[in-house]
């Protein structure tokens, strides 16, 4: 492709992501975004000004070398671009899809000041998909074996990225996972239509090939405790168990049939493949022709509501107690939800679930809210409007108001420091906990956050664990 001048580059508009039509996709579980074609990727990559000081990088939590990988794409060197990405990001095919780029890397891109930022995430996805689809995921060189063994607890993005780094450093790595399958939230939480499970599987297979030993069906705390791991030959432990304790609203009627946590609903559909019931044995609420309400406004809420629509819900609503401006979900997800016919009810808070005589959910009592002063999170606080209560007919409710930390590790490893909310306290530079040889990272440390932050923590921990294994402290 001929060299373009800066001016010419700046004339190219941001390339849109090809996607399945809203009406079609709301009836299937196939991926919504189809990915850039080579042509679109080349055009988009040309938009990058190859800044001498690429400010975009400061917006990426793991410091992906954005300028260089995009430069390689614009030269048609896609495999090299993927390799460049992998220097800093173990799962670019995942992050290119699920990172909140508009708040991270893309929010810093100079082009965004006057116009539209470079579509960094879409390009990241393109390069990673190219590698996987044409060459297969390539396995990097492994350093000579050190004879040291590390146990990783949890196979979400944090555990996987830590495992990938440590195995390359020459250590033996075992990943213990409570569920029967590997991938954490990437598998059981984020739906197929946003992140095809095939991609997660390809990444996990690549790690297996490198020699990572995956042990599913192992609930650490029950199957083995952390102390037992340390005395049975593991030299270090990385805890990456995520934020797996669903919060409920604690309002009357919450145990009626038809009221689910988002974790349960999504796990049944994604991990257990209930959307393919009865081919798969696990059932889920039959949403066909029903009114579904999802409470919350984050990514999880969007995933749940869009899933219910795909399962045939006649009406699928988001009910959120603040206004659209405060919606914590990624803008793209909310936008996609609207295209698929999801209805949004803002400034409404549930007070009570009401059921029929057999215990099935029939209605929710809602209260209208208005926005008051900003709260601790800086968002304007919703305040109830007295006397505004009203009833809404619903058949199924999904509670998606966040996750706390699962207490199994805390109960079985009391000699770690925890915050009041049960998160593990670590030194942020090394992910070291208060216990010798034990490190922790990801959502169990930060509370529910993002894939890329969890991966970053896994990588930081891998470096610190490597040092610890060499120096013994």
């Amino acid at each position, binding site marked *: 492709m001929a060299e373009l001048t800066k001016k010419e580059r700046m004339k190219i508009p941001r390339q849109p992501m090809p996607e399945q039509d809203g009406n079609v996709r709301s009836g299937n579980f196939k991926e919504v975004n189809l990915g850039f074609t080579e042509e679109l990727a080349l055009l988009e990559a040309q938009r990058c000004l190859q800044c001498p000081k690429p400010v975009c990088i400061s917006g990426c939590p793991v410091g992906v070398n954005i300028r260089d990988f995009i430069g390689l794409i614009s030269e048609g060197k896609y495999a090299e671009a993927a390799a460049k990405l992998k220097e800093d990001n173990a799962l670019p095919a995942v992050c290119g899809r699920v990172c909140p780029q508009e708040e991270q890397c893309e929010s810093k891109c100079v082009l965004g000041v006057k116009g539209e930022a470079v579509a960094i995430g879409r390009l990241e996805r393109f390069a990673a998909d190219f590698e996987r689809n044409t060459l297969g995921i390539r396995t990097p060189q492994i350093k000579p074996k050190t004879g040291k063994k590390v146990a990783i607890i949890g196979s979400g993005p944090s555990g996987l990225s830590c495992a990938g780094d440590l195995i390359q450093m020459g250590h033996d790595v075992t990943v213990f996972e*409570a*569920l*029967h399958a590997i991938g954490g939230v990437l598998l059981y939480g984020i739906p197929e239509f946003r992140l095809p499970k095939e991609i997660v599987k390809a990444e996990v297979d690549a790690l297996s090939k490198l020699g990572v030993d995956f042990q*599913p*069906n*192992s*609930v650490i705390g*029950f*199957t*083995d405790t952390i102390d037992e791991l340390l005395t049975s030959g593991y030299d270090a432990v990385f805890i990456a168990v995520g934020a*797996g*304790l*669903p919060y*409920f609203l*604690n309002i009357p009627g*919450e*145990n009626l*049939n*038809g009221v*689910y*946590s988002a*974790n*349960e609903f999504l*796990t*049944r559909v994604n991990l*257990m*493949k209930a959307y393919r*019931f*009865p*081919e*798969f*044995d*696990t*059932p889920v*609420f*039959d949403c066909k022709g029903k009114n579904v309400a999802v409470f919350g406004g984050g990514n999880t809420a969007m995933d749940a509501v869009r899933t219910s629509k795909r399962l045939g819900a006649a009406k699928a609503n988001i009910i959120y107690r603040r206004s659209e401006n405060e919606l914590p979900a990624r803008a793209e997800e909310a936008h996609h939800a609207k295209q698929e016919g999801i209805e949004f009810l803002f400034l409404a808070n549930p007070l009570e679930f009401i059921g029929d005589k*057999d*215990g099935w959910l029939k209605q929710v009592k809602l209260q209208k809210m208005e926005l008051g002063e900003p709260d601790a999170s800086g968002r304007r606080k919703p305040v109830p409007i007295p006397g505004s209560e009203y009833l809404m007919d619903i058949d199924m409710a999904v509670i998606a108001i966040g996750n706390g930390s*699962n*207490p*199994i590790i805390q109960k079985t490893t009391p000699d770690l420091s925890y915050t009041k909310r049960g998160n593990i306290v670590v030194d942020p530079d090394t992910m070291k906990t208060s216990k010798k040889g034990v490190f922790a990272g990801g959502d169990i440390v930060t509370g529910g956050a993002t894939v890329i932050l969890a991966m970053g923590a896994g990588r930081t921990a891998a470096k610190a664990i490597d040092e610890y294994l060499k120096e013994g402290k």
Partner: protein
Amino acid sequence: MYKIKSAEFLAPNIKKFIIEAPKIAQKRKAGQFVIIRIDENGERIPLTIADSNIADGTITIIVQGIGKTTQELNSLSANDSIRDVVGPLGKPSHIENFGTAVSIGGGVGTAIAYPTAIALKEAGNHTISIIGGRTKEFVLLENELRAVCDEVYPTTDDGSYGYKGFVTQKLKELIDSGKKIDFVLAIGPIPMMRAIAETTRPYGIKTMVSLNPVMVDGTGMCGGCRATVDGKTVFVCVDGPEFDAHLVDFDLLIRRNRTYSKDEKTALEHTCNYDVAFEKALQGGN
């Protein structure tokens, strides 16, 4: 893969499996359970660890075929494999020397109560076992329980064996005969557990029941197994499965267990194995 070392029917439709799972065998305590998944398309279902053998590295489970997964399981035989077995899950039974402890099992519930009955005996209790079955052939583990308990009372609904009547009636008889009973553990169908709770309530006898909600992960991650105990929501898989019978909301448990009744029929129609297993069971084979 977890290999089945032996499989035999104990009663029509109730099958005992010995499965290779060395780590779980070593770790498990009375009252804990595993979650199994038969194959790639399978559902995750909870089953109590009825026994274990550390030397052989095996655990025992006893399964009543009531729906798709349990019936499919009961069609398996020795040398077949189960794809996933995870555990031991849940809190172990609270064991102490109460004095006189009665363990009551209804149907397959006897298998669930069995390990705790042993533990109660080992803790020094005078242990009484009441084994309820619809008819003689559903009275489970009588010999095994006789080997550990001080007193064993089989009961059948039709009087075809042992005491004629329900386990509750036998329990009430024991209490009214002036026996000082300090602790009751009751495991079986929900209506039975509720009836036991009402039997012991007026006497203020500490009574525990093992709840059996529908579960998914078994680690406290999904909240699907929630029940109401003492007015508060609990996650049975991590907070239980045993709870104070006098505080459990049994109606709620019954209702929540009906969540998938319709789908369970669909799942069954989708399979064919179950007829085979059932027929085998009727012929008394395995």
